[in-house]
């Protein structure tokens, strides 16, 4: 404990976190309905992406089965909340727990399979899951899909049209989901942040770096991998339950491999092995396409396939982004931070000893300009 407490976050980091929190809390008041709906989907997805971040980012286990765990959570919510009319205070945690249990059962497979073999076996999970959803109508409504319960605590529920009024402040359906998801996301981030600095979290990172070395050093591989799967699936379950509840109607074909790929994309875009990465990546992957689309006027689309073109632009952005910033959004942020710090370091002596050492300054800025892939 004593050793850990030395790694206190620096003051600017705390300040930045507080600033982000304030912005996140105020955001709904500056947004229109479309932006807020998109924000709800992003925050809900970020919870699931954070989970995948634990599994893939920290423990190094590549999973394309996230859609399966999202679905487990969603259908747990549907059965408990929709069929049995229980409170969200029960079905929301239950969604996480049931998914975590399934994750713990899948975890041992990771002891036998490595890397992309594990990735593709987890794809199998998605297909087997979908086969069950298509066939067990009592849970999923069958191929035609089913409706999902709105979040409800006691007599108050979050369904469309309901709103919460706190001293002249109105929070509508979208806002309620936003704040609920935001609170869960904040707690989850705090948990993952703590985890990453705790003993089990470092065990995960050791497994990611060199599995055999970790096990030689006394890391319990089985326990570490199973718990990574369980934590990841827990967050996926919560995220899936909230997603289905907010969307209100879901068909089994929505829990597809494509959904898993989006989550993997989110953590990669954000930056692997960080707390903020999955959240930032979720913003890019789940908000950029609708926002791009909303920027395009569609009233007179005529013969131009404008929507295909926005998708092309989105794909090109991904390619260009990764060519120039392989570290993801977090990598970009770090680089900007370096540039900023570098600029400050350069500015300070400039004020003190004006006009000194121009050659050194130049060298430094040259170095900053070299992209990481070329180093």
């Amino acid at each position, binding site marked *: 404990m004593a050793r850990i407490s030395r790694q206190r976050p620096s003051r600017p980091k*705390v300040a930045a976190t507080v600033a982000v*929190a304030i912005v996140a809390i105020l955001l709904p008041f500056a947004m229109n309905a479309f932006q807020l709906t998109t924000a709800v989907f992003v925050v809900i997805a970020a919870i699931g992406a954070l989970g995948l971040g634990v599994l893939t980012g920290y423990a190094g286990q590549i999973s394309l089965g996230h859609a399966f765990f999202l679905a487990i959570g969603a259908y747990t919510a549907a059965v408990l909340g929709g069929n049995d009319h229980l409170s969200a205070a029960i079905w929301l945690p239950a969604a996480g727990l049931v998914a975590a249990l399934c994750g713990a059962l899948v975890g041992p497979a990771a002891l036998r399979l490595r890397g992309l073999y594990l990735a593709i076996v987890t794809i199998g999970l998605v297909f087997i899951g979908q086969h069950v959803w298509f066939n067990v109508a009592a849970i999923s409504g069958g191929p035609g899909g089913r409706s999902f319960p709105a979040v409800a605590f006691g007599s108050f529920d979050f369904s*469309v049209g309901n709103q919460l009024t706190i001293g002249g402040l109105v929070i509508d359906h979208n806002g309620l989901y936003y704040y609920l998801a935001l609170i869960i996301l904040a707690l989850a981030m705090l948990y993952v942040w703590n985890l990453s600095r705790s003993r089990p979290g470092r065990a995960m990172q050791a497994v990611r770096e060199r599995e055999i070395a970790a096990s030689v050093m006394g890391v319990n591989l089985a326990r570490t991998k199973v718990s990574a799967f369980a934590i990841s699936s827990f967050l996926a379950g919560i995220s899936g339950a909230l997603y289905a509840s907010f969307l209100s109607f879901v068909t089994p074909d929505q829990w597809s491999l494509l959904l898993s790929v989006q989550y993997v994309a989110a953590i990669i875009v954000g930056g692997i092995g960080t707390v903020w990465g999955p959240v930032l990546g979720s913003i890019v992957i789940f908000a950029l396409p609708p926002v791009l689309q909303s920027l395009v006027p569609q009233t007179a689309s005529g013969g131009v396939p404008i929507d295909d073109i926005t998708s092309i632009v989105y794909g090109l952005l991904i390619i260009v982004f990764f060519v120039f910033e392989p570290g993801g959004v977090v990598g970009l942020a770090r680089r900007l931070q370096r540039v900023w710090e570098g600029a400050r370091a350069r500015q300070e002596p400039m004020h003190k000893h004006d006009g000194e050492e121009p050659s050194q300054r130049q060298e430094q800025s040259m170095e900053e300009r070299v992209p990481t892939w070329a180093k």
Partner: protein
Amino acid sequence: MGKVKLRAVAAGCAAGVMAVSVAACGTGAVGAGTGGSTSGGIKTGAGVDAKTKTISLGVLTPLSGPVAVIGKPLTAGQQTYFNSVNAAGGIDGWKVNLVQRDTKYDPQTEVQDFSQISSQVAFIGQSLGSPTTKAIQPAADQQKMVVGAAAQDSAFVTDPVMAVIGTPYAIDDANALDYIVRQTGHRNAKIGIIYQNDAYGQDGLRGYLAGLKSYHFNNVAEATYQAGDTDLTAQVQKMKSAGARYVFVVAVPSTAATIVGTGASEGYNPTWVFQGPAWSEYLMTSNGMTTGKPTPVAKALASNVWVLGYEAQWGNMRVPGMQQFLANTKKYAPTQIPDYYYMYGYAQAQMETALLRKAIESKDLTRQGILNAKLHLGQVNLGGLVPALDYTPSLGPASRTTEIGKVTVGAPTFLRSVSPFLEGTAARGLQFTTSG
């Protein structure tokens, strides 16, 4: 460590609370009400601009992705009709403007699109697809917003806000069975079905089973496939070995062609009965018109395929609205090829124009006013392009008639009517419950 963490959180909370109270004094309130106002004796609501006398309608439809094949022509058909209405001075002086969003046939995108445009439109002039429309149904119900659902899912015909034209699949299937009885004279023909394993396929299956029950047919084989399956030999063989003489096909065009092609190359040629969306002109030729190069499956399709629909034959001048329809198409969509989704969109716009006319007559263009107009619209003739609709507060399907077209090489849209609009006894008796 714990302390830092707590302090950070506490600071965040304090700042948040402070900021929220600031926002409360200002403009920030989450969500927007849709206040009504009155203009020239007409009460107006969201999406109705009294100054410019413009009514905006939302269009939520796939304009990209695989279902754009349907979404694009359907929207073009609506646009053509509204263009003609606007050019003729509008509806009692009110012009209609379409606000389109691409849903990609994805429920989440549909919800986002809906939230983006719902405050700018009087109602949703088109929402294409069953799972997509179901995702916005709670919000539409709550806002009392009429939705022109372009989906023949039976679940929509019992929701007051859903304005559906045409005939549900279930009734189409029942009518086709009725026709088989009358054509063959006996009721022991062997019948099978191949359906896509989704909401659309389920609805077709439901209608098929209901129809079989009332006509006491032998259901000799049922087979299903998953969207994306490339080889349907097993499904076709199941029909073949069961000896099915009529096979209902509830599929998308590419799969429907695969089914018929597979059957033909194995020497199995029953009468294939296509559910409307299984058909596309592009299955026949390279450009969807008679001038194009025939596809490899064209011959098999032309041998024995019926297509269930409720729309008039393109170019059939005995249909009263056809001349105007063709003239408008020539004027506003000169490059449009004969396409039944286009015609559907055109007819849907006719329905919506009638709806707005009624609401304007009642001097109420608020959401509630438009919903009232829809519930009491009564019978509306759509120029014979689509069967006349009948909206009443007791709800139910807009029409119960079906037209059966046989795939024919020479016909303008490759379809020749083999039965006039027909309404069988089973179709007449089919009940729609509100359970959804």
